[in-house]
């Protein structure tokens, strides 16, 4: 009986192709929008996760916001205090930060200038395109050496090998300091914490004693132990800092934390957008109801004949509900194709990688079936309740 009804539905759809196509359009657009939004939500969140993870999920960065009360606290020794006070920390590396112009070969470029320890590069998982990191010794001995980011190397040296060449820092006072390039970083995916490609790195001690006479640390890079949950360590660290320096003197940032947050936000946003797309599905459903009512009215005579031949009300109801569901399911499948193409187009434009989730397909098929049953019910009831004699005499 069920397959007979599906056959009947298909032949009814075939006999009025234009009308079927137009009434399907609503469902196709509705389901397409739901599929596109769910898939784009997934792709967006994976994309965000990917760029956050570029900075390393085991890293917590603490930006200092020193005031008169706390400027003496944020020293390089304070890093050790943090490491010893909070469980699950492998290392704490203090960093100084400044920005300025760098010149070489008469070319000049703006850069973020970081004073940091030699361990920083391995902690941040940075690899080298040319040369290597400066050593612990060079740091202790205030050597005038520099590691430059990929973009800086391109700007200043183009195809030349920068290793062994000198770059000049132009200070605010107008003085010029010349440092030797020992390493060039490999190109790195843009991270939300900072742009490594547009930075230069000099030993921490050199920075504090020779470049800028200031020893208030601008940030601490905390590398967590891999046996500990970064978010948990971050929470403990924040608690410790809140009691020792006060919560308005620092800001902590961990990619893991942001990843979790961003995923929550995109999930909520996707759900919200999908709900809006659901409204178009509702409108599509009303279209289906309309077309089914027309179909029932047009086929009154047929319904009368079927009743005379012994079709019970539930059989007639079944026939029209199956027809409505066949219609919406067809719309659903077309919608999945339509929505996938939209997702593909948008992710191509945004430069994300597309992930098509089977979840969205299940949701789409489920929704279109539900719409078919829900909006097919009333027309089907109308058909099943027709008086056999009146229906037979209908012209």
């Amino acid at each position, binding site marked *: 009986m069920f397959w*007979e009804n599906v056959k009947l539905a298909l032949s009814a759809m075939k006999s009025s192709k234009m009308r079927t196509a137009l009434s399907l359009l609503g469902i196709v657009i509705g389901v397409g929008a739901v599929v596109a939004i769910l898939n784009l939500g997934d792709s967006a969140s994976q994309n965000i996760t990917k760029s956050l993870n570029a900075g390393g999920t085991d890293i917590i960065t603490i930006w200092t916001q020193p005031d008169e009360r706390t400027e003496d606290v944020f020293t390089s020794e304070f890093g050790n205090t943090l490491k010893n006070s909070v469980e699950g920390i492998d290392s704490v590396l203090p960093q100084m930060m400044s920005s300025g112009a760098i010149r070489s070969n008469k070319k000049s470029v703006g850069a973020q200038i970081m004073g940091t320890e030699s361990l920083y590069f391995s902690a941040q998982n940075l690899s080298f395109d040319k040369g290597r990191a400066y050593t612990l010794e060079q740091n202790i001995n205030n050597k005038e050496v520099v590691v430059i980011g990929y973009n800086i190397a391109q700007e200043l040296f183009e195809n030349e090998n920068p290793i062994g060449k000198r770059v000049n820092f132009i200070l605010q006072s107008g003085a010029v300091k010349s440092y030797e390039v020992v390493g060039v970083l490999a190109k790195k995916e843009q991270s939300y914490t900072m742009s490594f490609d547009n930075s230069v790195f000099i030993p921490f001690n050199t920075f504090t004693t020779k470049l800028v006479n200031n020893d208030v640390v601008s940030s601490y890079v905390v590398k967590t132990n891999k046996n500990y949950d970064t978010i948990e360590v971050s929470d403990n660290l924040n608690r410790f800092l809140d009691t020792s320096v006060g919560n308005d003197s620092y800001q902590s940032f961990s990619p893991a934390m942001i990843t979790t947050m961003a995923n929550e936000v995109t999930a909520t946003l996707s759900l919200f957008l999908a709900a809006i797309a659901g409204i178009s599905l509702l409108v599509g459903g009303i279209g289906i109801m309309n077309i089914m009512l027309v179909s029932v009215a047009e086929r009154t*005579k047929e319904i009368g*004949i079927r*009743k*005379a031949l*012994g*079709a*019970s009300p539930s059989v007639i109801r079944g026939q029209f509900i199956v027809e409505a569901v066949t219609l919406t399911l067809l719309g659903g499948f077309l919608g999945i194709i339509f929505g996938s193409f939209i997702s593909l187009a948008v992710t191509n434009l945004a430069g994300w990688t597309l992930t098509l989730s089977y979840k969205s397909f299940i949701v789409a098929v489920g929704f279109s079936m539900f719409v078919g049953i829900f909006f097919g019910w009333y027309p089907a009831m109308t058909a099943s309740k027709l008086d056999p*004699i009146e229906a037979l005499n209908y012209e």
Partner: protein
Amino acid sequence: MVKNVIHLEDVKRYYLVGDFFVKALDGVSLDIERGEFTAIMGPSGSGKSTMMNLIGCLDTATSGNIFIDGENTAGLNETELAYIRNKKVGFVFQQFNLLGKESALRNVETPLLYAGMKPKERKRKAIEALEKVGLSDRMYHRPNELSGGQKQRVAIARAIVSNPAILLADEPTGALDSKTGSQIMQLFEELNAEGRTVVFVTHDRDLGNRCRRQIHIRDGRIEE
């Protein structure tokens, strides 16, 4: 226990039209035995169509009892009435009432489909019925590819396919020319000769005279 295949006891069917009751049938009692060939005759508006609808379980009486093949139809719901129409009654209509989008074979199969029969057996029985009415070479044609007489033969095949207790025909020759009509009438006579109960509704005296028994209806009452 009612033995007769059709048994009507003081059946009334009133319609409310506006503020008036129209007495379409006003106390009709009737018995038709198994194997009879009966014509129900009367002018239009006499109530003969109402009676046929009641016997065919397309309609229910305002009061009185109607027994079809021993079963009282009074108080049955739509589903139960559909079951009786499917099992006990075969309809043949003046306007053929075939399903326009289905082949002759599928048309004949439809009552068996509603009886829940398996596709293979359905097809076998439908072919058998089509052979009986002499249309086995037209089974894959749609109604619009058939002549009036052929359409009515398909309808008759459909009416007999489930071997019902009653064959109920409402002016079955009314839309046909007299020659074709006579052939259709002959087919009914053959089916009756095989022992089928045929009830024939007509206002045509010549056709009525070919039936063994005639029941005349006027103003909702029988005047036999």
